[in-house]
């Protein structure tokens, strides 16, 4: 593929994510594989560049939530196509890290955690969203199986926030607590609550959650 054509291709990938066009992102990812393009370049200069730009626009106040969520989902869709191929590469392509998110058992509030997921994706993290009303055992098994750097637990009710503590206790019992940083969020949670239950951090908004995670992982914003 000629350089100019390749550049135009990669720019389309960037734009697909930036503009939140999920179908277009999938189409471009498949084309990249079919054309035998360098997937490291495709990721770094195409899709990741798009999601980074979306994150910057959101931080600057130019993008609103719908744009960010659409960009994040376009990114995820492209990743789902590229991931199996990238795993075959020597050394692979590393994301900034894996994050598991869940709203705890008994709590059906999904949207806050979804927004945090979109922000994390926009910041280059690989997000595994377990959904809402997730049983504690499913959370623990996922941590053991996926070995994420971060586990984010959301609870919107005073009646369910104790599950955040129960999950942390289970991680200790299973010997996994030291292998994952746990962050908590949701209306009844607080910095004090996080300290009390032995979590590593708390955030009350999605942008700050990214800063929190970056800080916990020793990265700059």
């Amino acid at each position, binding site marked *: 593929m000629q350089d100019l054509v390749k550049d135009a291709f990669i720019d389309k990938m960037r734009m697909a994510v930036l503009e*939140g066009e999920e179908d277009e992102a999938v189409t471009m990812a498949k084309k990249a594989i079919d054309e035998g393009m360098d997937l490291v370049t495709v990721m770094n200069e195409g899709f990741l560049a798009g999601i980074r730009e979306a994150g910057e626009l959101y931080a600057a106040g130019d993008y*609103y*939530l*719908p*744009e960010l*969520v*659409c960009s994040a*989902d376009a990114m995820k869709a492209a990743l789902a196509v590229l991931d199996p191929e990238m795993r075959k590469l020597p050394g692979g392509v590393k994301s900034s890290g894996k994050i598991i998110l869940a709203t705890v058992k008994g709590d059906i509030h*999904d*949207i806050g955690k*979804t*927004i945090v997921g979109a922000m994390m994706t926009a910041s280059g993290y690989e997000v595994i969203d377990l959904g809402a009303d997730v049983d504690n055992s499913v959370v623990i098994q996922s941590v053991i199986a996926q070995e994420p750097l971060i586990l984010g637990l959301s609870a919107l009710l005073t009646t369910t926030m104790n599950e955040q503590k129960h999950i942390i206790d289970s991680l200790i019992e299973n010997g996994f607590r030291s292998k994952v940083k746990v962050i908590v969020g949701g209306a009844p949670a607080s910095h004090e609550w996080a300290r009390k239950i032995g979590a590593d951090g708390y*955030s*009350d*908004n999605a*942008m*700050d959650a990214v800063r929190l995670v970056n800080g916990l992982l020793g990265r700059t914003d």
Partner: protein
Amino acid sequence: MKIQSSFLSEEERKIIHADSIRILEEIGVKFPSEQVLTMLAAGGAKVDFDRQIAYISEAMVKKAVASAPKSFILGARNSEFDFKMPSLFSGYNLDGCGVNVLDFRTGMRRPARISDVADAARIFEEMDLGFVHWSPVSPSDMLSESVGMMITATSFMNTSKHVQDEVQEQAEVPYIMAMIKAIMGEQKTYRDRCVYSATYCTVAPLCHDEAMLSANIALSHYGVPILIYPMSASGTTGPASLYSNIAMANAESLSALVAFQLASPGAPIILGAALGVVNVRSGIFLEGTPETTLQIGAMGEMARYYGMPNTTAGCLTDAKQPGMQSVLEKTLTTLPLVLSGADIIQGIGLIESSTTLCYEHIVIDNEIAHLCKRIKDGIDVDQAKDYFSDIKEVGQGGHFLKQKNTRKAFRSEEFYQSTLCDRNSYDEWEQLGRPDLIQNSRAKIENILSGEKKNPMPNDMEKLMREIMSEAEQKLAE
């Protein structure tokens, strides 16, 4: 639908009109001018020249109402800010005649300076719902016969919006006309669109001021719009019931309307009102009260009853500094007026019963105006806003953030995005230094005053204005 509220029923409007006519016919109004009394007599009024009282009939009122234009434009040097009366939304007017300023740097109250007139105009220029600039203060650092002209010229030079002012003496009229001509060029009449209008206050109860009346009649000959502004306070300068105070103020308005239409048939007139109540112990004029809103709202209804454009006082407070009381009272004295369909609401920027200018409140009041407008605009129950397909697509569970309609809607006027009220999370708010409405408004003001002047007056026009000021300063002192 747009929300439409009423202060008076149709029947009540008729009753107040009838009461006002009875006041005009049986009690009469004092016009301390031989010339005006003669004109009123020729127009059909019974006149007691000794007591300077004119008794005006309903027929005269009906003729005056019929002769007054029902629509015209308050023009602006920058025609983007032209304001058509009557209006489909409420525009805002800086209130005039304050004497003090809450100093932006020190926070202390001090006498107003001419630089405050310029600063207020520059801030007002950037308030998107502000359309009419009446200098909010009379400066005490330039006490001279020409101070009124200095204020008007300073206003013109610092805002490209419509300028309104009070004219105290007929001797000022040539200078005002010279300023209007400097901006608009020579015209036969400025009746359809004029960059300047004058506020004419009646003197309660039931009097007119000779100098102001003659000056405003002179202006009306050129087609300069006149805002008639009765200000009776229920219980002191007006009767102690809201109903009768409204009827009396309306009678004062109608008497002025008759005089202006007899003097200059077809002169553009705005019916206004700044009725108030008083502190029952001290007698201090109060503005930020529910009774104020009720009275001025009713006066707006009467203007619409006559089919006339209106301006009402509003966005008022008796608080001495920006804070909870000022925002509470200003909201209380704005929203009902907006919901009733006031053309222009006059009061932004002032506190302490419209005697003290507060820069911060120019900005805060523009925000109150936006929030009230959003409520007035109501709920759009239209096919274009029927998002059944989104509900069907998302179904049970999930979210609507990825719907194309959501993207579009979040950027539409349906969801007003406040730039002044804090909408952050607690942690974000703390990280920002716990800003409040006042701090946010201060940041905006710093930005405006430290930046370049918006829509500056062209140099040659400014030169003309300065020449007019200089001449006024010399001649009016003689």
